[in-house]
Structures are given as structure tokens and as C-alpha cells.
């Protein structure tokens, strides 16, 4: 057992331990800092805050003083809901066809559908702006919705395909051999089994739409302001401490949603696979 405590192994434990702790601090620290900052009674972003108050939350929830933020948040929610719906429907249909196919065209399509993950979003945002402008469309929430749907499809495809690849083919065969139609098998066997994967993907897609900057930056107009773009404006001009309050609301909501999704679909397992 003397090997276990050799100097080399102790240096391993020390180095890996220190770096991993640093990673944890870097990951979690900013979230805690923002939460605490949102309760400051100061007009600046001094940390730690000199005193605690709820004034920035009060101002954020004030219907008249923060009207534009509320408008932008509602727009973002509406776009996220529609684009997630579209991406989930089309994405699941495509996954059903592509997940088990080894054909060359299927692999190529799969690569195409996944490419928005690594394609620079800003290049696509600019391209979409010019494309819609030349087609004669004016900036609107519908255009943003279409752009978001394209960008978030890979998230649905990935989790749904992962669930499908774990689906036991014997189940589908027995369903078919018992005389069930393709659609009946889909409805009663396939979908119930892969539903957690679909929901996990839809959740990630929804959050990605809420968070999207590159597409919204180019496609939003004065009448279709989106939350991240408005927050960016608030950070660029004068450092508005309301951004901290928005962040506080955001972080709390995300933590609640994550706990909920973990309960319902086992989010951590879906994401890890």
C-alpha cells in the first residue's frame, strides 16, 4: 500500500485538486457574486455591497419605469416558445428518420442539421438579416422566431437521437408483429420511451433561444426588442444596476427549472449521454 502515498501520487492529488477547485470557483463564483450584487443599496457595482436592499428589484418590477425591459422579456418568451415548438416538432421527426439510418445521405443531412452548433452565429445572423431584407420582409418577431428555430434544432436533435439509439429495437418489432401500425407504435411505444430525451432537448433549446444574441442582434428592431439585446444596451451605456436584478431573477428561475427538469426527465443524465 506504500505506493498509494508515493510523492508522485501526492503531487497528482495536489495539482488535480487545486486546478479542479479553481474550476469550481470560476464556474460558481460569478453566479454568487451577481446574486449578492443584485441586493446592493448602492448606485455602483461595488463588491461586496455596502448595504443590502431590494431597491433594484422594486425598480425592475415597476411597470412604468421598466416598461421596455418587460416588453423585451415578453418578446423573448414568445419567440422562445414558438421557436422551441417548431424545432422540437421538426427535429423529432428528423431524428426518428436519421437516428437509425446508416445511409450516406442521412449522415450528410445530420451533419448539416448539427452545423449551427459550431457555425459562427454572427455570420448566420448577418446572412439572415440580408436575406430577409432582400426578400422584402421588415424586422418582426416572426423572423427572429424562424432564425432561432434553425439555431436551436441541433439541441433537440442531439438528445432525441441519443434516446432513440438506446431504444430496444425488439420493442418496435414485437409491436409491429402484433399487428400495430407504424403510427400506433410511434404513439404508444416509441414516443413514451424517448419523451424524456425530447423534453430535455426542448428545455435546452428554449433556454438557448432566450439566451440567443447573434440572431436577435441582427433581426430585432425597435418594435421587436429582445431581452439580451436590451440588457446589452443597458450595460453598454450607463452601468444600470437593474441588470443585476434581472440576473438575479434569471438565476433563480433557472435553478428552479433545472431542479424541476431533473425530477421530471432526469436532465443531468440526458445531458451527460
Amino acid at each position: 500500500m506504500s505506493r498509494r502515498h508515493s510523492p508522485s501520487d501526492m503531487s497528482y492529488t495536489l495539482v488535480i485538486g487545486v486546478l479542479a477547485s479553481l474550476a469550481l470557483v470560476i464556474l460558481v463564483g460569478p453566479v454568487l457574486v451577481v446574486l449578492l450584487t443584485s441586493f446592493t443599496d448602492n448606485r455602483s457595482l461595488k463588491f461586496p455591497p455596502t448595504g443590502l436592499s431590494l431597491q433594484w428589484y422594486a425598480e425592475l418590477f415597476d411597470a412604468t419605469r421598466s416598461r421596455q425591459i418587460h416588453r423585451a422579456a415578453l418578446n423573448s418568451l414568445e419567440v422562445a416558445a414558438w421557436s422551441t415548438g417548431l424545432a422540437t416538432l421538426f427535429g423529432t421527426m428528423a431524428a426518428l428518420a436519421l437516428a437509425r439510418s446508416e445511409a450516406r445521405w442521412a449522415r450528410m443531412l445530420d451533419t448539416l442539421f448539427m452545423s449551427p452548433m459550431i457555425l459562427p452565429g454572427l455570420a448566420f445572423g448577418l446572412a439572415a438579416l440580408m436575406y430577409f431584407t432582400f426578400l422584402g420582409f421588415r424586422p418582426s418577431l416572426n423572423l427572429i422566431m424562424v432564425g432561432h428555430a434553425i439555431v436551436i434544432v441541433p439541441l433537440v436533435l442531439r438528445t432525441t437521437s441519443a434516446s432513440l439509439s438506446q431504444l430496444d429495437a425488439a420493442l418496435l418489432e414485437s409491436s409491429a408483429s402484433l399487428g400495430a401500425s407504424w403510427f400506433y407504435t410511434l404513439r404508444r411505444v416509441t414516443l413514451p420511451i424517448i419523451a424524456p430525451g425530447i423534453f430535455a432537448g426542448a428545455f435546452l433549446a428554449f433556454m438557448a433561444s432566450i439566451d440567443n444574441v447573434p440572431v436577435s442582434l441582427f433581426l430585432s428592431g425597435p418594435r421587436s426588442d429582445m431581452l439580451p439585446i436590451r440588457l446589452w444596451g443597458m450595460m453598454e451605456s450607463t452601468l444600470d444596476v437593474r441588470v443585476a436584478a434581472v440576473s438575479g431573477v434569471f438565476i433563480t428561475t433557472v435553478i428552479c427549472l433545472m431542479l424541476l427538469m431533473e425530477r421530471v426527465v432526469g436532465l443531468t443524465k440526458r445531458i451527460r449521454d
Partner: protein
Amino acid sequence: MTPAAARAGCSGGTRLPLRPAEWQLVLPLALAFVAFFAGPLLILAVVSAFDNEQITTVGFAMWTKFLGDPFYWKVIGDTVKLGFLTVGATLLVGYPLALVYIASGPWMQRVLIFVVILPLLTSVVVRTFAWIVILGREGVINHVVLWLGFAPAPLRLLQTELGLVIALTQIEMPLMLLPLLSVLGRIDPNLRDASAALGASKWRTLFQVTLPLSLPGLIAGCILVFASSTTAFISQSIIGGNRLVYLPLLIWQQSLVVYNWPLASVAALTLLLSVSAGIVALTLFGRRGMRHLHV
């Protein structure tokens, strides 16, 4: 019925008349991608081949202007450099965290995954804002540095490359960790135990067993981080400020401030090509590593 017969019955059109063909299921998404993905990218390429801002004269003046100017080359170089610095930083602290993850029990693993996903799901704008609070003149880091007496005056961290890389390390780390955790989790723990039983030190096991086997996840993480950090417009413009110019800022200025769409398209295509070149380099690097593994 034998499984083979069942499979034949499953794919036979006569038994299941309502079964749609695979192409029918893919068609809606494929059409949407042609109309709203391929179409726009084609327009991007077309617009870049115009000489003037009114988009009336065809020519490659914008390309020659862009590629003939040392300033733009510096912007391209800085953008690629930022991507690789972020990849290096996320790898340096992310990989050890992934090692701790595979050595932990199931409960701790779930907590760690939560910790990794939380920043991923809290908006990029929120994460960027957090780093302004941390890196600012009156921020957390300066508070600690001054209190410990490491520096006589507040350090300048905002609007520096160092500050931006630190912030991007947190902002992009989940993208590095998720593929890594997935691949590391699938490596048979017996291999590590066997390596230790045969007398290898923990370092040797890391470099000769775990690291080579995790290469696919590692490369996937590097690609995601590289692609995301080079195009992280909000973080770059807020933390980097106007002193540090990267391709995304250039694209934004040229298209939405100056309204020079051809030049913006040239910059966007350059970003696209730079990112693709970086991804190809990372993939080749990974392939070489894996070939080495099979020898």
C-alpha cells in the same frame, strides 16, 4: 416468428401501409434548412462579391481591401488567438475537474453536473455582467489584491486580453466539460485500476490511459469552445471594450453602424473560414493523437 422475419415484416410496406418513408420525415426540416439556412449563407457569399455599399457593382474590391490591410489581419489573428487561449484555459482547469468527476460517487456526480450546467443556462449576458462586477476597478479581484497588498493601485483587468480570457474561461467551460464528462464516464474504470495494479503512478495512468481514451470528447470540447469563444460578441465587446477589436465587433460595426454590407459579409465569411480552419486543425490534431494510440 424469427427476429429476421419480424424485421422483414417491420420494414415491408405491405404490413404497415401507413409507415412514412425516412425522407418524408426529414423533409420538413430539410426544406426549412434550405430556405432559412442555406439561402441566407448563399446571400452572404453573394453580397461579399460587390464593390460598393449600395450593392450595385460586382467585384472583389472589398476582399482586396480587407485582405490588403494589416489592421484587418491583426483582427483575424487576435480572434483566432483568443479562441486558442480560451481553449487552453478551459482545458487546463476543466480537465482536472472532469477527473475529479469520474472519481466521485453518483450523488457528487449529479451535483457537479448541476454546477457545470448552471452557468450554461444562465444567459451569456448575465455571465458577462458578472465578470464586470468581478474584474472592475472596484471589483472582487481588485478588492482582494489591494487587501492583501499585492499591488499599490487597482489592477486594470477590464478591456484587457487577460481579463477577457478569464471571463471566457467560465463562460465557455460548460461546452468543454459536457463532452468530456460523457466520454470519461464511458471509460471502463477497470482500465485505471489495472494500470495502478501494474504499478503505474497516477500521472502515468492519466497520460497513458485516461487522456488518450478521452481524446474524442476532449477534441469535441475544444471545437465547441473554440467556435463559441471566437464568436462571443457580447463578452468581447463588453469586457474587451473598444480597445480590443475582434471579428464579431467588426461585423457588427460594418453592418449595423456603417451599413457597409459587402465589407461586413467579407468579415463574416472570414470569421467562418477562420473558425473552420481552427476546427480542422483541432480535428487533425485529435486524429493524429488517436492514430498514435492504435500503434
